[in-house]
């Protein structure tokens, strides 16, 4: 969903429905990761989520309590007696990290997979223009990956059978519908064919979540890296 705001550097946001589900904790984790990545760049979505979260806490305040057994209480009280160590999480450290964060550093929510830099990521070749690094696969089959498109390069003509989310991390790309820059959150349903092209100034790196198999059309399919085929059942390609 587009919010056109000439003052905001981030133009493309998750829908309010998605933000609501995110704040309630009901989104699939892969989707939530995309929103978490987006909000590191987007103050207005951060604000929305904070407000939405208050809906959750207000409802919890009103929720009718359910009786807890005395055994459970005693069990928990016994556990805390043995555990006097505060969880290792130094707020000062985090503040220091945040202060030095620039727009090109790794989003905090991705540091588990990309601790240092995008250069150090283990990229797999897909086409001369496109590299991919798979981060994880969900129980549902959804895939989370980083995609790097060389400056001026294009993703293959591709359509896919179900939903895809892209969050731009570095660089930018454009397609028929617009030009997308770092922080932009782009949602695509399974219906349209599109051909993203990275702008000429630098490589474009994105976080991508794909719900379903990518069906490559055209001659790129012959170069398809086995990594993309992993766990996706490839439909028979027309004309192959």
């Amino acid at each position, binding site marked *: 969903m587009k919010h056109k705001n000439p003052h905001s550097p981030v133009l493309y946001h998750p829908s309010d429905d998605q933000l609501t589900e995110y704040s309630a904790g009901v989104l699939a984790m892969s989707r939530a990761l995309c929103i978490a990545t987006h909000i590191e760049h987007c103050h207005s979505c951060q604000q929305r989520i*904070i407000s939405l979260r208050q809906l959750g806490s207000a409802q919890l305040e009103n929720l009718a309590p359910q009786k807890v057994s005395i055994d459970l209480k005693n069990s928990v009280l016994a556990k805390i007696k043995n*555990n*006097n*160590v505060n969880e290792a999480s130094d707020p000062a450290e985090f503040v220091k990290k945040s202060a030095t964060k620039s727009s090109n550093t790794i989003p905090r929510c991705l540091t588990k997979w990309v601790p240092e830099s995008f250069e150090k990521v283990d990229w797999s070749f897909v086409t001369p223009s496109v590299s991919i690094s798979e981060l994880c696969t969900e129980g549902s089959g959804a895939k989370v990956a980083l995609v790097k498109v060389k400056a001026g390069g294009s993703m293959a003509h591709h359509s896919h059978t179900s939903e895809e989310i892209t969050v731009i991390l570095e660089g930018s790309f454009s397609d028929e519908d617009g030009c997308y820059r770092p922080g932009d959150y782009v949602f695509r349903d399974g219906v349209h064919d599109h051909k993203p092209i990275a702008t000429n100034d630098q490589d474009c790196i994105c976080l991508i979540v794909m719900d379903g198999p990518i069906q490559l059309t055209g001659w790129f399919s012959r170069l398809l890296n086995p990594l993309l085929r992993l766990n996706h059942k490839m439909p028979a390609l027309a004309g192959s």
Partner: protein
Amino acid sequence: MQPSLDKKEQDLARWQQYIKAIAEHRDEQAFARLFDDFAPKVKAFSLAAQPGASMIADELVQEVMLKIWNKAHLYNPAKASVTTWLYTLARNARIDYIRRNGRFSSEISSDDIYNDILDDRLDLFSLTQQKQTEQLIRSSLSELPIDQSQVLAKVYMEGKTHQQTAAELQLPLGTVKSRVRLALNKLEVLLRREAK
């Protein structure tokens, strides 16, 4: 029956004191009192998502209460209200519980996603606005028409998506979404995006 606003304010002030005592003095009595007040809420929160699953609810209670014990020193009253902090802990624990099972399994944990980045970045103006939103929600929530509060409860308390809510209530998805939006408008939760 909803507790009066005054009583709520008192409860919250007390909870804040308990958490402070836990953080500063590892006060086990304060923890026990907070347990008496809050554990039954966590149990209800778990049962809302998984009705009848009493053992799971007990596990969630234990997990959340231990998290409170371990993270009390991280709670900053200037940044968030005590129920927001507690709700976040309960919500994240419930997410992670569900995440460990089958179809919803994921390597991504709630800590990866809900990593407190929101609270660390609030400026004074935003904090003030958020406090106002909070007051408004608290005072107006019980005045929402039943069809709106029902869908909000499905999403937030029962942990259902709009889609699942529509299926359970046998309503079109569009209807569910618009009821949620109407509620958000009434509570003035989502203001126009600011020009920045």
